[in-house]
């Protein structure tokens, strides 16, 4: 699972070229192609009381084109391959269509700045994208929302493991980034009900077993030249993963998911969604292999 081709989704207000720059460390691994996409949402931007405004669409297209030309020139000069899509349509559908057409290895998207009311009426594009995309999605956070360094989000990722196929797929994904990642923190959050038994000995045994499983994965990373550390946290994953990220000075949170049916269910109000939408950390979400 190499990251050779990246699809960068932007409306310009939430993700700019600084975010692109911060991802260029991936060229030390396999990244060689960046595709930009700007979706002009017909109903949100180009409608008015007088109906559909073609002139407005043309203006928005050309604004996007001018920005992308500037960004692309910078990347072309570094020897990267660059492509651009400026399309009118529904954000999620157009992003998925472009990701499939380009066979992208990673989708990068920012969190939109919606108010609570807007969320209630329109739902979240990001959640919808995560539900439908077969490609890993990096949810980038706006600079003003975070105090952490975004010079290279892949520098110190924290991988939250729940032993699901998707979280093990995330291991395969990160293993390819030996030249980009300086250290990985592997975290498993055990729920209080997972601590079987009532004696200290039994509880410590559970911790030890979990730790050993994590150490086995650390060995896989170390074989690829990536330093890895195992951590066991106890409590609610909704809170503990973020705490672990802070403790480990992580630059990004990486989450897999449960099996497909559970994945869909989980998005309706669960840990990955919470991190995607609320965490201050860039969040990389690895979906399970879709059948």
């Amino acid at each position: 699972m190499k990251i050779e081709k990246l699809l960068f989704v932007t409306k310009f207000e939430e993700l700019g070229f600084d975010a692109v720059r911060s991802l260029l460390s991936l060229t030390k691994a396999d990244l060689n192609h960046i595709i930009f996409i700007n979706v002009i949402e017909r109903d949100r931007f180009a409608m008015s009381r007088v109906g559909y405004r073609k002139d407005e669409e043309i203006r928005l297209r050309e604004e996007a084109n001018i920005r992308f030309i500037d960004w692309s020139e910078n990347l072309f000069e570094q020897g990267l391959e660059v492509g651009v899509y400026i399309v009118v349509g529904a954000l999620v559908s157009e992003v998925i269509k472009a990701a499939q057409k380009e066979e992208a290895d990673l989708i990068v998207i920012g969190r939109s700045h919606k108010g609570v009311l807007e969320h209630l009426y329109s739902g979240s594009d990001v959640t919808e994208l995560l539900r439908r995309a077969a490609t890993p999605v990096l949810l980038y956070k706006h600079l003003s929302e975070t105090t952490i360094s975004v010079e290279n989000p892949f520098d110190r990722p924290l991988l939250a493991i729940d032993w699901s196929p998707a979280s093990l797929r995330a291991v395969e994904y990160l293993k390819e980034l030996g030249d980009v990642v300086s250290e990985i923190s592997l975290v498993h959050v055990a729920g209080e009900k997972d601590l079987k038994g009532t004696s200290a000995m039994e509880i410590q045994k559970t911790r030890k077993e979990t730790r050993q499983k994590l150490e086995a994965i650390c060995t896989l990373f170390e074989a690829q030249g990536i330093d890895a550390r195992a951590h066991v946290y106890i409590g609610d994953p909704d809170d503990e993963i973020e705490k672990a990220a802070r403790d480990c000075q992580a630059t990004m949170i990486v989450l897999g998911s449960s099996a497909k049916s559970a994945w869909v269910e989980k998005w309706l109000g669960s840990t990955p969604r919470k991190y995607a939408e609320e965490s201050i950390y860039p969040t990389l979400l690895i979906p399970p292999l879709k059948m």
Partner: protein
Amino acid sequence: MGKTVLVVDDDPDVRLFSVTVLEEHGYTPLEAANGEEGLKMIKENKPDLIILDVLMPRQSGIRLYRELKTDKSLKNIQVIILSGIARKTFLRSQKALTEFGGKEVPEPQIYLEKPVEPEVLAAAIEKALS
């Protein structure tokens, strides 16, 4: 029948513009919407001239130009670059790709920055094919 000219550009408005200029001057136009499609059409049709955009989905004009100029059977096809990307960037990009281990490729004979007037394009086409 006039000489065949392939227009490779993802913008349908630009393709329409170029095709109109070509038809008005008696050439036979062909169209492709990206570099990948363009390369396929070049191999199938061996056009006399290619009008090539740079920034496109699937494959950019920079990579397509490089493929053309390093292919023995295609390298003599004339190319006009018609793009919003600056000539300087095009040349720097080719230089970077050569430094990464690629073959050196010649500079494009004619480089036009968008937008371009119809008579300027027509004159460039005539010059490239003369």
